[in-house]
């Protein structure tokens, strides 16, 4: 069928991209074979309701070769991935970043309609994972993964990912248990304390003692279980002779509990168990609020996540999938197009092209020849290659970076939190006050001395102080998250507030590596464009992909022959005309070196039509952001050659240091040098080549365009189009210091009032029951409200990211 109909761009029925309708099926147009296949599969299985579900939102189809999952059938690999394994039932969990809407859940949970061997599937939306129960005697694990990929939900499999999925929420759950117990006990103790507030008569002594002992009973789980974290932490910090916020809290809680128990057992009073359990409850709410995590994001990935799980190794005259940590020096491995080299190796082919953009940030593939050293982390472009492994993955050039000191250290150790500094002063003041009041009462009324001292310690419990930080930082974390900047935890906010130096990576960070602008210099007819689109569509080279995407119009043409010559170009024949798309040498164009842009030439029957100029596109808002950062913006460190120096100079201004051709170690050392000068450094980068610098810096921010793909270990992940607002984010983080100090002031004023009651010996249970929760609540309300207000002023230009 050689038809030549001009079709106006229609939205693809599956992905909604303004497609050029390569194919029409069932009266619906599709942009690519992949989208059409998905529709066909769904149609066959009566699952087209997928497109009609409320909340359906379209996504782009990503092609994954079905044999890419073959290694899953290797017993070593599957043993690591399967959660449960038996003869007729196995259970597996896949991480699928594409999960994003109600239709995704619906389709994935209808998976049993595709294959009888699939027993049950269950989606966890927050974690973006799907758990599949299946019959391993009927379907292979690799077939399952391939099926998911075929309907557009390609699972991402790495050993580390599975660990993250399994134990991420365990910590959170512990906290909720404690919170539930504390809340339960608090509510019931309040209930039993009520008669006491209203005033019981003397002849109700039986009731009074019953209520008191019930309160004591209910307070035991609170002190033993819910509050245990505070006691443990206080003990720990005493052992290392440091004062943190948990010491005065533990002291106050202990004073409250001991005093109340004494009063009840000696039947001298009703005790303060209502205040005690209330404080623990509020404190735990603060912790819970602060512990917000992004379940589907991982901040602690190392190189293992980047590498495939297994590769094909030549053993006993066949290719066998083998787990990469079993690779030994001397093994012979085969890699297909776009696969990552798992270990430093030597090339066995005459010629191959390796894309090191992962490692160096440089996006142009490097040509390698027989016996050349190929580093781990490179990506094979073009034909399959055979390699000879030199070193194990863990000893490879790139991965050895992880053995450096930066990866072993913990940030918190060398920096004192604002809250702990405040707690230190606070504790000293409180203990001094307790001693002074004790001495005064010793002379005034020795019988009440201990009562007054415990009262002082009780009300001095800096509950409100301890709540200020979690609620301020927690609220900021949420405001950031709504706008596409995801932080690892709330401590990062405080570190961002103190940043005075920002260092940027270039490719993928300042510029968007995936979407360079491309324009054709020369003249092309609609038919030429269509032919080029079809040709480039058949190639997997990154530049081909860019050109293919940039051609909008479409005329249906049929390709008679096609050949890809890796690293050089493409040759194809349409209607007897020979099209060549590729490097200047490939089409015999007059060769001129252009470092700042990649050029792809086009010729038809050896008649050169012109070239595509591909420029890396600077992300929106970057120049404003750099201006707003001013002196803080210190340097640009890039793994690329300095072809972009002038363009970057224009963007950054002359005061910013420009460093090119930096290795990952260079970047890390540069950040370290700045830190030795006493700077607090934020590193903004994207690739594996920045991972050392990200880890070394005080705050490492990874830029990524799709939160589903891998990001290096970092403290925060920012979506690519939000990077222009980095200064706004930093400004909000900075205002957290002010908000926190104001909250401290409020908290201290309450403590001062309460202390004056306590020192005068007037602290009745009723006064404590009102004053303590009131101070907690007002601090919580103040910090949440203040953050909200600050976010509105700082973020007026930033839109919410809807996810």
């Amino acid at each position, binding site marked *: 069928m050689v038809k030549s109909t001009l079709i106006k761009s229609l939205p693809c029925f599956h992905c909604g991209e303004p497609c050029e309708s390569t194919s029409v099926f069932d009266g619906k147009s599709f942009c690519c074979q992949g989208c059409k296949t998905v529709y066909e599969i769904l149609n066959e299985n009566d699952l087209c309701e997928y497109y009609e579900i409320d909340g359906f939102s379209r996504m782009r189809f990503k092609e994954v070769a079905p044999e890419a999952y073959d290694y899953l059938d290797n017993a070593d690999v599957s043993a690591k991935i399967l959660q449960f394994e038996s003869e007729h039932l196995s259970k597996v969990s896949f991480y699928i970043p594409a999960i994003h809407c109600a239709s995704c859940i619906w389709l994935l949970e209808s998976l049993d309609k595709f294959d009888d061997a699939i027993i049950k599937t269950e989606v966890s939306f927050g974690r973006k994972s799907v758990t599949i129960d299946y019959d391993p005697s009927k379907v292979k694990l690799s077939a399952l993964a391939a099926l998911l990929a075929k309907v557009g939900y390609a699972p991402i499999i790495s050993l580390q990912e599975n660990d993250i999925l399994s134990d991420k929420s365990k910590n959170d*759950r512990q906290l909720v248990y404690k919170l539930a117990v504390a809340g339960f006990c608090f509510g019931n103790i309040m209930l039993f304390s009520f008669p006491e507030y209203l005033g019981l008569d003397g002849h109700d002594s039986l009731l009074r003692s019953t209520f008191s002992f019930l309160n004591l009973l209910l307070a035991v789980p609170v002190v033993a279980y819910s509050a245990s974290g505070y006691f443990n932490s206080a003990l720990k910090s005493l052992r290392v002779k440091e004062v943190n916020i948990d010491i005065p809290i533990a002291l106050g809680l202990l004073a409250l509990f001991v005093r109340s128990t004494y009063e009840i057992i000696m039947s001298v009073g009703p005790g303060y168990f209502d205040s005690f359990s209330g404080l623990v409850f509020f404190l735990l709410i603060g912790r819970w609020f602060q512990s917000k995590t992004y379940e589907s994001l991982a901040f602690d990935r190392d190189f293992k996540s980047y590498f495939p799980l297994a590769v094909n190794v030549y053993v006993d005259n066949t290719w066998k999938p083998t787990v990469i940590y079993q690779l030994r020096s001397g093994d012979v491995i085969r890699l297909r197009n776009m696969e990552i080299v798992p270990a430093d190796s030597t090339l066995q082919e005459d010629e191959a092209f390796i894309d090191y953009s992962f490692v160096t940030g440089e996006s142009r593939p490097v040509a390698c020849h027989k016996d050349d050293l190929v580093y781990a982390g490179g990506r094979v472009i073009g034909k399959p290659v055979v390699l000879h492994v030199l070193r194990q993955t863990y000893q490879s050039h790139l991965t050895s970076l992880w053995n450096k000191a930066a990866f072993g250290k913990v940030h918190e150790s060398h920096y004192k939190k604002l809250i702990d500094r405040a707690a230190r002063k606070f504790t000293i003041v409180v203990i001094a006050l307790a001693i002074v009041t004790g001495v005064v009462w010793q002379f005034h009324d020795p019988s009440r001395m201990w009562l007054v001292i415990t009262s002082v310690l009780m009300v001095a419990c800096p509950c409100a102080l301890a709540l200020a930080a979690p609620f301020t930082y927690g609220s900021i974390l949420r405001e950031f998250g709504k706008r596409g900047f995801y932080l690892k935890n709330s401590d990062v906010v405080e570190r961002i507030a103190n940043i005075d130096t920002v260092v940027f990576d270039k490719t993928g960070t300042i510029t968007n590596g995936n979407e360079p602008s491309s324009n054709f210099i020369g003249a092309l007819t609609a038919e030429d464009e269509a032919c080029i689109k079809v040709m480039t569509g058949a190639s997997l080279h990154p530049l081909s992909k860019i050109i293919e995407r940039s051609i909008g119009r479409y005329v249906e043409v049929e390709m008679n022959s096609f050949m890809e010559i890796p690293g050089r170009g493409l040759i194809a024949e349409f209607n007897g005309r020979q099209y060549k798309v590729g490097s200047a040498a490939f089409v015999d164009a007059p060769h001129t070196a252009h470092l700042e842009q990649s050029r792809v030439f086009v010729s038809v029957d050896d008649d050169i039509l012109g070239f595509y100029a591909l420029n890396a596109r600077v992300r929106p808002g970057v120049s404003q952001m750099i201006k707003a950062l001013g002196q803080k913006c210190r340097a640009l460190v890039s793994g690329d050659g300095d072809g972009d120096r002038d363009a970057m100079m224009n963007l950054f201004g002359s005061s910013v240091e420009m460093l090119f051709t930096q290795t990952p170690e260079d970047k890390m050392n540069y950040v370290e040098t700045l830190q030795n000068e006493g700077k607090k450094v934020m590193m903004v980068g994207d690739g594996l080549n920045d991972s050392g610098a990200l880890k070394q810096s005080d705050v490492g921010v990874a830029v990524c365009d799709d939160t589903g793909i891998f990001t290096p270990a970092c403290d925060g992940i920012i979506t690519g189009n939000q990077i222009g607002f980095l200064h706004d984010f930093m400004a909000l983080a900075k205002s957290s210091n002010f908000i926190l100090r104001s909250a401290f002031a409020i908290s201290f004023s309450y403590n001062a009032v309460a202390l004056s009651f306590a020192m005068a010996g007037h602290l009745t249970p009723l006064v404590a029951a009102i004053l303590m929760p009131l101070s907690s609540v007002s601090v919580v309300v103040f910090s949440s409200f203040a953050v909200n207000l600050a976010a509105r002023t700082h973020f007026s230009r930033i839109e919410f990211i809807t996810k």
Partner: protein
Amino acid sequence: MNIIIALICISLFIAVGFLISFLWSLNDGQFDDTYSPSVRMLRDGTVKKKKTKKNERAE
């Protein structure tokens, strides 16, 4: 008056029952994913319905 004490003990006993059932449901993972169940409950029947419609048309 003793009856009040008995009632209070009973009420506390029931409340503890609810606490335990909450902790159990938490442990069971019922709060891990609060979005997909809302989609899941609308699922089953509709697929079958579509099938019958198609069959009718075929006949």
